[in-house]
């Protein structure tokens, strides 16, 4: 009888292993702290199409340095600033950025035209850009990028954009909306938060 009990015990133990295996898997999952969300709503009515993309920044941080294609290597994109048709060749972006960082909050660029309004400003550690097209019902673009992210983006060598560092900086920054685009037909929203589902 004792031996039968022992066999039954072993069988139960084996069954326990079977049940515990998936449970331990789910237990080992770590929470990806920050998620980058993209939501696109295109069209309206029955033709409406929505796209939701939710990417954990930890995934982006891990994958981006491993990309090794063309001018994207080691998490950095090589930009040919001195290219023939490149308008950036005469602009020292880093110097401009340093100057912006050291200046107090305020509007840097304001363009008010007949059709379009453009405003670039620094507000509370963010580089803020607003574009309004048309009078009413035109497209609206709002971008609010943390300065740390912009700095990280430009932290590589000359002619390089450090994407990996920018993603890391984004993860270290708080939650917030980065870009919204609203126009007659579509809406785009890009934001970072700690939820793994877009809302």
């Amino acid at each position: 009888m004792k031996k039968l009990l022992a066999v039954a015990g072993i069988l139960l133990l084996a069954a326990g292993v079977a049940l515990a295996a998936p449970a331990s898997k789910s237990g080992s999952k770590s929470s990806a702290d920050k998620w980058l969300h993209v939501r696109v709503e295109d069209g309206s009515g029955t033709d409406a199409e929505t796209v939701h993309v939710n990417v954990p920044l930890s995934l982006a941080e891990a994958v981006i340095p491993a990309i090794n294609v063309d001018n994207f290597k080691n998490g950095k994109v090589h930009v040919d600033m001195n290219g023939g048709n490149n308008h950036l060749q005469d602009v020292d972006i880093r110097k401009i950025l340093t100057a912006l960082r050291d200046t107090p909050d305020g509007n840097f660029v304001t363009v008010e035209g007949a059709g379009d309004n453009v405003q670039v400003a620094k507000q509370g550690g963010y580089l803020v850009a607003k574009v309004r097209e048309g009078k009413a019902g035109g497209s609206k673009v709002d971008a609010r990028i943390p300065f740390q992210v912009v700095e990280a983006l430009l932290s590589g060598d000359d002619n390089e954009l450090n994407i990996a560092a920018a993603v890391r900086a984004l993860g270290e920054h708080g939650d917030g909306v980065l870009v919204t685009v609203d126009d007659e037909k579509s809406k785009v929203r890009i934001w970072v938060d700690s939820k793994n589902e877009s809302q």
Partner: protein
Amino acid sequence: MLNIFRSERGLSVPGGMLAAAGVGAILAGSYLYSQGLIRVSVQEKSPGGEHIRLAVPAAIVPLALAFVPAAEIGKHMPAEARQHLPMVEAALNELQRLPDCTLVQVDGPREHVRIRVEDGKMVVDVNDHEDEVHLALPLGSLRSVLAKLHRAVEFSPKDGDSELSGAWSHPGHHGGGHHDEECDVTREVDDDGSGSTESTAESL
């Protein structure tokens, strides 16, 4: 009847063997269960369209891969695959750590796509006007595939060879003692006017 499984001291030899077989079966079953199932379902929506369903224990993936020589995979491995292998590995490491979540969701008038991570599986659901496809792939099963591909990289054509053979190269055009011989064959055929070196390499 149960007496044949019992001796005076307890379990008899057949009884012990049966118990051991039972434990082995349960352990094997628990391993298969823990590795999950690869599920594929493709349903064509056209009249008379086919419905293909496949459910394979993920545990057989490493077993099946054991029968495929790494050298053979490497010889046919495109340069792009070799290039992107570290990226896939990094992505897999992170995907395995994710909680259940939806990575991509597309809802349109004619198509619905959802890519999500669920219980350690990558689940892809596509439903458009032509087909309905469901795929569930345990992420753990991809690890053995990646390990095999890493071993295969050692046998893959080097960069210098890739321009000769294109993305899908022939085994004879990299490394090994037959290299020169193969090159001679290539030249001979080329001299015969059969076309470029590339086309010759493919014909071999």
